[in-house]
């Protein structure tokens, strides 16, 4: 694996499905791997989950904190605000 990759692992639950879809939409470079009971997402240097995209997909307001509820692990620095959840490497 490239040392510059950020990593996000989510539980393979119903709530994570639209998140994966939103990630694919906003991060074309992201690689999605379906593992037993979890979804592993890697992406070069930066990965963003946008609340706007999520809201479009699920038809209701979405708080980036909801991501925490199905989060397994992540690698990278985190920048979280009301409209996005971003994982990135600073170097």
């Amino acid at each position, binding site marked *: 694996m490239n040392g510059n990759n950020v990593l996000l692992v989510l539980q393979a639950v*119903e709530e994570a*499905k*639209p998140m994966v879809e939103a990630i694919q939409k906003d991060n074309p470079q992201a690689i999605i791997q379906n*593992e*037993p009971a979890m979804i592993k997402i890697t992406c070069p240097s930066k990965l963003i989950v946008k609340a706007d995209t999520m809201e479009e997909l*699920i*038809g*209701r307001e979405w708080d980036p904190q909801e991501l925490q509820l199905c989060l397994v692990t992540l690698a990278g620095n985190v920048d979280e605000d009301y409209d996005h959840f971003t994982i990135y490497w600073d170097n």
Partner: protein
Amino acid sequence: MTLDIKSVEIKPIRQTYGHVARRIGEGKAATRYEEATYDLQASTNFHYLPTYNSKFEIYDERKTAIKMSDWYKFLDPRQYYYSNYVMTRAKQQEVAEQNFTFIEKRDLLLTMSKDIREQVLKSVVPLRHYEWGANMNNLQLVSESYGSALANAATFHAEDRLGNAQYITRIGLLLGENEGSVLDEAKQIWLQESSWQPLRKLVEDSFVVEDWFELFVLQNVVMDGFIHPLFFDLYEQEISSKGGNIQSMMTEFISTWFEESNKWVDKTLNVAISESEENKQIITTWLNNYIPLVEKATLALAGNLVENPTETVSLIKENFIARLNKNGLNL
């Protein structure tokens, strides 16, 4: 002793049911909503024609003048299926419950002036009969409409209307100190009082509208589009400075629900209009028929509630037309 836990990955052969996969594409994981919606309704091999209406099959596309190449375009933007619908409403119910408890605990009823209390009992509580009518009409949509996408959403909408009626009843009982007689009085107002008769006539006439999409337009688009903003927005704004603040606390569910369910109503309307020029024409004709009638009925009621009824209703109409035009109409 060391314990080594190994996981074996078993790849599912299929991601979802065949009929769902044919819609969303092979190999894609379907959402619960998609699985609980797509092609659930039978579309061929019906047995007997229903005895109550033998002109049509039990599910029949000809029951409305609207034509669709695919009835599953009417997806619900909120993606409600049983469990997430119930969870969402349960959360809202908890908030509403808290509001009522708060009002009772702090004796906030005392902050409501006697005049406003009377006004709510006489001029808002009879609306529970309107909400019940909306429940009937949406259940009619469930039984007549084509495709489970619309029928599912209409089922939830129908139940929501019963919930609205119950909240209005609860407000009545709270203000009337749990005397059931306030509800009897409100019913008499609904049946007798002249300002309520145009709306009552509209509701009763809507029960016999045969075309189900016309009924959708009349109830969920036009009637609600006038009545809800008047009762649960503009009226509450007007009384909030006169000691009627707690009214908005008690109707909070209804106003958030209205905003939320309008997403579905607007999308449904928009999908039907974008399908074809003919659909747009038919819907425009229905709207032109009903808007003046509903406007008149709303004006009659606005007289009981606000200081400038004419201005208030024309503001509601202006916003309503703007909303329709945003969804692809030219009115």
